Structures are given as structure tokens and as C-alpha cells.
């Protein structure tokens, strides 16, 4: 930290707690009994011993002195765990994300397997790996880490899998939890459930006519462009909903 910056700080009439913290950052040794004036003196003494230029302020020391400055910190590109995760983006798009442990990746490379990510519609069935209503898949690089799939149906259950082909057979090596795409149209039923808060208890009654319900419902939205496209993001960032 430059001498000028230390002086600026002292001029800002800091509280004793701030002085203590500041002194600590500069590496000034403090005693518990020290008063505001003593701490200020100790800080000035330290600052005098610094050269009055920015030469001694390397990037590293600035970072240390100003630790709260958010930095473009390096994060690992992978964490080497076995997983595949799926989330709906909207009623027609699903985001998948995956990684593999070193062990799994090695065993795949031994058989020279090409990796695929697959999203299957398993609405209302117990999935046995073969009975999906339909699926979409893409050949991927492990490093790629994620993929967006356009799917056919809102209000449907999807499962993500990572796997490879052995001949014609898809061999699944990882499965995600099941996710459900949101609805984009009303769901009409024959009965409605009503709770009576005064008398207690619940009651099933015939549902209101569709016309009455529809009066308040806007037209449902259809599929959009890919959530990874710039066009999509631009549209999203410009339009406002509630927010």
C-alpha cells in the first residue's frame, strides 16, 4: 500500500475498530491497551518507512492489502466426479451438465468409447433403460461439460444419462435425477379440491367450466430458440416480466 493511501485512510477519521483492522493489514503490531492516538502513530510510523511511490505496490501486495476486491480467480474446469444433472430451462429446453471421475474416464478410454449424453422422456413409466417414450442424444466431449436439448413436451418427466454405444446398444454409465418440464398451458381436471378453513375438512367439487378459467389465461408460448444462443439471451435480457 502506498504512503498516500495510508494518509488518505487516516484522514477519513476511522473508528478505533477500523484503525485496528487497518493496522493489522499493514502488519503493525498492536497492544490491547493502545488508544486511537497510539494506533494512528504506529500506522504513521510504518507508513514513513515506506517509499512514497507506487513502485512497491505490486499487484500481489495490492490484492493482499485490498482483499475484498473481486478477482477473476481461477476455478478448476472440472472436479472429476461422476455425475449428470438435468434442469429445465423452460417448457421446451433442458440443460444437462456432467463430469466423470478419473477412474470412470480411464475405463471409458480403455474401450475407446465415444461419449453420448441423452435425455429421455419417461413420463408416467418406471424407466428400465429401454422403455423411454422418446429420447434425444448428442455425441459429446467430456470437457464440454454441458449441452442444451430441445424437448417435445412441457409437463413431462425427463432423465439424463451419460453413456456410450456398444454395437447398437446404448450402455448407460450415469443417470441423473428425474426432472419435469414446466407446463405452459392450463391443466383442467374434473374435480377441484377446496379446504374449509372455518369448519375444517376438504371437499371435492366439480371443476369450473373451462370458459371461466380460460378468461384469465394468456396463450401458451411455444418453443424458443436455444438458450445457449446469443439471439436468445439478447431477447431475454431486453424483455421484462414481473422483474
Amino acid at each position, binding site marked *: 500500500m502506498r504512503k498516500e493511501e495510508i494518509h*488518505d*485512510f487516516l484522514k*477519513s477519521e476511522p*473508528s478505533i475498530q*477500523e484503525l485496528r*483492522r487497518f493496522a*493489522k*493489514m499493514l502488519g503493525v503490531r498492536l497492544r490491547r491497551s493502545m488508544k486511537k492516538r497510539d494506533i494512528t502513530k504506529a500506522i504513521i510510523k510504518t507508513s514513513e518507512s515506506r517509499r512514497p511511490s507506487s513502485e512497491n505496490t505490486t499487484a500481489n501486495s495490492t490484492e493482499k492489502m485490498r*482483499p*475484498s*476486491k*473481486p*478477482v*477473476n*480467480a481461477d*476455478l478448476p474446469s472440472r472436479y472429476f*466426479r461422476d455425475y449428470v*444433472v438435468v*434442469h*429445465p*430451462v*423452460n417448457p421446451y429446453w433442458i*440443460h444437462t*451438465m456432467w463430469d466423470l471421475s478419473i477412474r470412470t474416464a480411464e475405463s471409458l478410454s480403455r474401450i475407446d468409447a465415444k461419449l453420448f449424453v441423452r435425455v429421455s422422456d419417461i413420463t408416467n413409466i418406471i424407466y428400465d433403460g429401454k422403455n423411454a417414450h422418446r429420447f434425444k442424444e448428442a455425441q459429446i466431449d467430456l470437457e464440454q461439460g*454441458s449441452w442444451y436439448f430441445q424437448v417435445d413436451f412441457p409437463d413431462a418427466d425427463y432423465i439424463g444419462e451419460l453413456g456410450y454405444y456398444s454395437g447398437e446398444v446404448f450402455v448407460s454409465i450415469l443417470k441423473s*435425477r428425474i*426432472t419435469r418440464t*414446466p*407446463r405452459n398451458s*392450463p*391443466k383442467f*381436471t374434473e374435480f*377441484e*379440491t*377446496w*379446504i*374449509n*378453513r372455518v369448519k375444517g375438512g376438504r371437499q371435492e367439487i366439480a*371443476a*369450473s367450466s373451462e370458459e*371461466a*378459467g380460460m*378468461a*384469465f*389465461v394468456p396463450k401458451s*408460448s411455444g418453443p*424458443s430458440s436455444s*438458450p*445457449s444462443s*446469443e439471439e*436468445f*439471451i439478447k431477447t*431475454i*435480457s*431486453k*424483455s*421484462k*416480466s*414481473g*422483474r
Partner: protein
Amino acid sequence: MSRGKLVLMLHAHLPFINHPDFPSFMEERWLFEAITETYIPLIMAFHRLKNDGIYFRITMSITPPLMEMFANKDLQKKYVDYLGRNIELCHKEIERTINEVPGSQRLAKRYLKELEEIRELYLSCDGNLVGEFAKFQDSGNLEIVTCNATHGFLPLMTHYPEAINAQISIGVDTYRKDVGRLPKGIWLAECGYVPGIDSYLREYGLSFFFVDSHALWYGDPAPRYGVYRPVITPENVFVFARDPESSQQVWSAEVGYPGDSRYREFYRDVGFDREEDYIRPYIDPSGERCNTGIKYYKITGKDVPLNEKSLYDFDDAKKATKEHARDFSQRKREQVRRLSEQFGGVEPVIVAPFDAELFGHWWYEGPLFIEELFRELNGDSEVVPATPPEVIDSMEQVQQITPNMSTWGANGYNEVWLNGRNDWIYRHLDEGTRLMIELARKYERTEEKLKIRALNQMARELLLAQSSDWAFIVTTNTTVEYAVNRTRSHLERLLSLYREIESNNIDEERLNTLEWIDSIFQGIDFRVYAKQVG
């Protein structure tokens, strides 16, 4: 005569921004501007309404990061300094405007008076703004609800129930600490709802939450009364859904009230207009220009270029707020009549949620509009302002519905927070969550003080990285560098704390620093992540 209720809901939120090692930091101004332009003007409007005996009912979420920033001593001191500098600028402006466009000096004097009143209120409550709002809760005028801890986007946490649980639990704890009682309701960040989240709310005693319109329109089953009657989920939590008509009247770029030509122009500010030498002490020390809040021009016309705007006239703008409040009230009466007729006499409930910062910060006259709205509706026999608990108390029958997965973001689902620009965040958030849960369970019974501190800090870093604000900013392409670096820095801090804890080599000096800079939730207990949920 038909009759309906109006629930006005203001969502007050800013991400936790605290840079105590900097004499000033550009992004800390977000808080200072919001206190000056929105939060205190709202408190003042509430006081005027109360003093005049006006019947008013408002619901407000004050999010945990906002509560934590209100209570932060460093930020309090910086805020007082900020106000002091702006007051000094007003004095200079009064001098300077003597020879400028007639009327600008009157405005400068007005700003001076306004800022002095704001400072007086702030100092008189010792910076305890939550306490000031809570007074109106005590008098029944205001219902303050909580929000999930750091405004984390819950729909993308569903595979880690522990993460959702922690967000809700800490949201409730912060409210209890700062407000002194338990919250009755919650605003889920970004109105992000996925079926199942209501079970967490029930567990924490939260009796209601808010959703966007299509959560009910496309709920299971379709609601009998659209968005105009609250419903109850199978977990027995009440749901209030946004009325699109009310939003449209206030928000719409074409017909919304804030676009009226008489209102103040946001984008003409002396922070940008004055010469550099003069304005330097009042903008960012780096020399980067920013808003000061001193603005002399009105919108004038939608297509009028910024440099051709006319002088702002406060009295004209005040007249506009009255006209708009009258118009809004009239539209609500008509809506109530129309809906009552459709519902065969059943009382409609109109829910109008907004970002609080729209009022005052973006729309300077917004708090006045709210004040005028309640004056207009005072004693109204058709539209009665109400809080959610009042609405709930008045309901005998309620329809049970599972709301649809939804958010209040553009297009209504997850796209704002999950797209090609920001999807990289979730790989790291997921890893952070996994590590946090792993260590919370491993060290649940540890009594080592240093380890406990490191684990608590790890939880803070995770929670701060989870703020939905960062992904939002990346999508909207505003202060992207700050948002990206905040995300990365918190995650890097989390990962290094993990390594230090696991290698039994905790760097206490660095931990001290992190506890100081990322100081949110002082009383946090990392064990919240050890709980078995889901």
C-alpha cells in the same frame, strides 16, 4: 356493491456488497442510492400517511443481505459520508445554478432540503432502518416478509435439498434476529418456485409466499378464480399470484406511469453533466462518472434526446403522481367490479408485486405515487388495501392447487438464470454445495473453535456465491465483470477453505480477513448443511 382487496407488495433487495478495505467502492453506491432514493422516502411516505390517519396496507420483503448491510457499521459510516458529500455538492450546486436555467436553483435547494431530512432520519434511528420499517409492522400498516438467505435461485438447487433448506432456514433466522419475531411469509428470490419448495416453507412456519401469474394459471389443477384468489398448496401454504394488469400499468414501457413526460429523467445527472474537476469529489475516486442523484431534467418526451430535455418541475410531477394514483385506483375499482361479476360476488384479491427500488430510484416520484394511491383509496368501499395475513384471515374456503414451476423473470421460467452466458456458474455452485454438505456432516460434532470458524466462513462463501444477482447481471450485460469476479472469488475462497480444513492447516490470518470482508450472517452455524432433508 362489489368489493375487493389490493395487496401491494414491494420486494426490497440488493446483493451483499461490502468492501471495508476500500475507502469507497463503486458498487457500494447501489445501497447508498437505494437508501436515499427508495427506502427512506418510503419510510417518510409511511409516516405522512400515518400522521394523516390514512388507511394503508403494504407488504414488503426486506431480504437478508439488505438487512445485513443496513446493520453493517462500516457501511453505515460510509453512507453518512456519502450523504455528507452529496449535501456538500448541493451547496455548490445552489451557488452554481444562480446563473443557469431559471428554476434549476430551486431544484438544487429542494435536493439539499431532501438530503438533510434524509440524514436527520437516518441519524435519529442510528441507521436502524429495519427498526424504522418494523414500527409500521407493529402498527399493522406493514407486513414485512423474509426472503431466502442470499436470494439464491432455488429452482436450480432442487438436486441439493440441503442447499434449499439452508437458504430458507437462514432467511428465517436473519429476520428473527433483526425484526425480533418470526416472519409469517416469504418472497422466494425471483419468485422462483418448483413444486416441493412449499414443504420447506411449512417446516419453518411460513404461511404464505408469492408467485408469478402462470404459477397458478398453469397450476394443477387450473384455478377457479385465476390469479384473483389466493390458493393453498398440498403442504398448506398460501400462495399469492401476481396480477399482470397491475404490473402492466406501472411497468410497461409504452403505457406505464413512470414514462410520463413530467417525471424526472433518470439518465441526466450532474455526475455526468458537470466538468471533471468540479465533480471529481462526488463521483467514484477512480474518476469513473456515476449518478449523484442531482438531476435537473424531466423526461420531456420519449423520443427527445438526452441533451434536449427540458427543466424538471417538481410541482408538475407531483400533480402527475396524483393523476396516476387516481387513474390506478379507478382501474382497480373497475377491475374489482368486472371480476366480482365474473366470480358471482366472490371477493377478488389483486396482488401487485414490484421491485421496491423501482419506486424512488428508477422512478423518482414512485414513493409519492404510493402515498397518493393510499390517499385516493382511503375509505374506499370497493378497493380495500390488505396484507396477506388479513386476506388469509378473511377466507373461509380456499382452493388447493400445486402451482406450476415458474419465476418472474423474462419468459417466466429459468432462462434468465440459466443460459449460454451464465450456465458455467452452476458447475461450481454444485461442487461448493457438495463440499459444504460433506464437511458439515463430517465435522458436525467438532469442538475445535478454529475449524468451526472456517466451516462457518465456508458456508458464508457458498451462500454469497449463490446470489441470483450474479447470473442475472451476466444475462442483462450490466456490471458483468463485478458479478463474474464476485462469483469466482467466493468460490475460490470456499475451495481454499475446504483444502485448509481438510489438511488441518487453517490460515487464521486469512480467515480473519474473510470474516471481515464477507461478514454476512455473523451468527451462522454451518451445521445447517448437515441436516438430512429431502
